């Protein structure tokens, strides 16, 4: 299975900057993955490594590496939910 082609990656991610820095509320959370509501819309996001988000936690959308780099192809970056420390 090959790495994601650059045009596909670009199409999938071109609007992600609209969510960067936005703060939302976690609806449901499992290991490294959450359903989060941001400005009335629900999104499914991976969580930042080491974060243990719970329902009702506030989290901010940040830009992080999504997978381990391989010898060829893109190093995939994307949105993740990061716990918001008060």
């Amino acid at each position, binding site marked *: *299975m090959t790495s994601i082609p650059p045009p596909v990656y670009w199409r*999938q991610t071109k609007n992600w900057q609209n969510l960067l820095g936005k703060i939302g509320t976690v609806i*449901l*959370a*499992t*290991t*490294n*993955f959450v*359903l989060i509501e941001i400005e009335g*819309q*629900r*999104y*499914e*996001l*991976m969580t930042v490594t080491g974060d243990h988000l719970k*329902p009702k936690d506030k989290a901010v959308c940040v830009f992080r590496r*999504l997978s381990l780099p391989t010898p060829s192809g893109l190093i995939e970056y*994307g*949105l993740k939910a990061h716990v918001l420390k008060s």
Partner: protein
Amino acid sequence: MKISILGEYITQFGELWDKSLRDLLYESATQAIASADLKPSAIEAIFVANMGAGILENQLHLGALVSSFFSHHPPAFRIEGACASGSLAVVAAQQFLLSGRYQTVLVVGAEKMTDVSSAVNTKFLASAGDFSREYGSTFPALYALLAQAHMQKYATTRDMLSAVSVKNHRHALANPKAQFHKAFSLADINQSEIIADPLRLLDCSPVTDGAAAIVLTSKRTKSPQILACAYACDSLALADRQSLTELQATKSAAGQCYHQSGVTAGDIEMAEVHDCFTISEILAIEDLGFFKKGRGGQASLSGQTTYGGKIVINPSGGLKACGHPVGATGVKQIAYISNLIRHKKINIGLTHNLGGSGATAVVHLLGGKL
């Protein structure tokens, strides 16, 4: 007009080192035709269900592949609907029979999954979700979110999830074709490795090789009949769902089936439901109307879903213990229930097959000749 199931066959399910996808398709197709007591030349068309051969084996065009087993090369179609591919292929075959275009057809579902790594299988299975909306998700993660929602709203417990797995592994002990023949206790399930909280390793169905086939006819027979069938869809992404504690596609398909047939949920003696994870069986038995919403976990824990209870769920062991070769599963469910009816062990049974995290649901009601 009712469609009858003239014959059925299920291969061994498991990690089948010595069998290729072609071997599995050939075995199931030829044995189902033999079981129907037909000559191969009686098959007018073939419907092949498979999800992953294009990704896992670089083998597409499965319709022609199976057709080439026959000297008369019947026309053949490949149907893909993620893990619901098998039952969708049956639906497609039924439509051709009901239209009068054909009178006797073969449906075969198969998947060969164990030749690749877990990482490749995980990525391949994730293709049944909305890749652009659920980036980075895995199916255990999506079903874990559904489990979290059910636990929060209905106080479903760890033991209730585990009871589903314990029961299905116990049922599989009596099924020689099942992938696993090992009994587990609640404690075994509760202490297995966390995959995606709250789902643990023994909450999850396995990676499986296997195939199943049935022969359908519109001719009058004394064989088990398809009393009703219905299918429905919902959004691919969980984020777009109205509710995370029910699968709307299942409710819709089941409602249509009961309406078509006049059969009620209370009439059904056994059901093969889509337990890709333990929470999915709990959701299914509620959404199919066997138990009130929110009571499926307690029903599982109190023995209401096994022999001696209200209804027997997954007598084969289900996806959890019999195995889940995704393209074969829907056909296997129908073949298994049909065989029980043929041998007069039950009168009415139901099958429920899901694609993705409930984006596609197919329900079949089967019964003896009325």
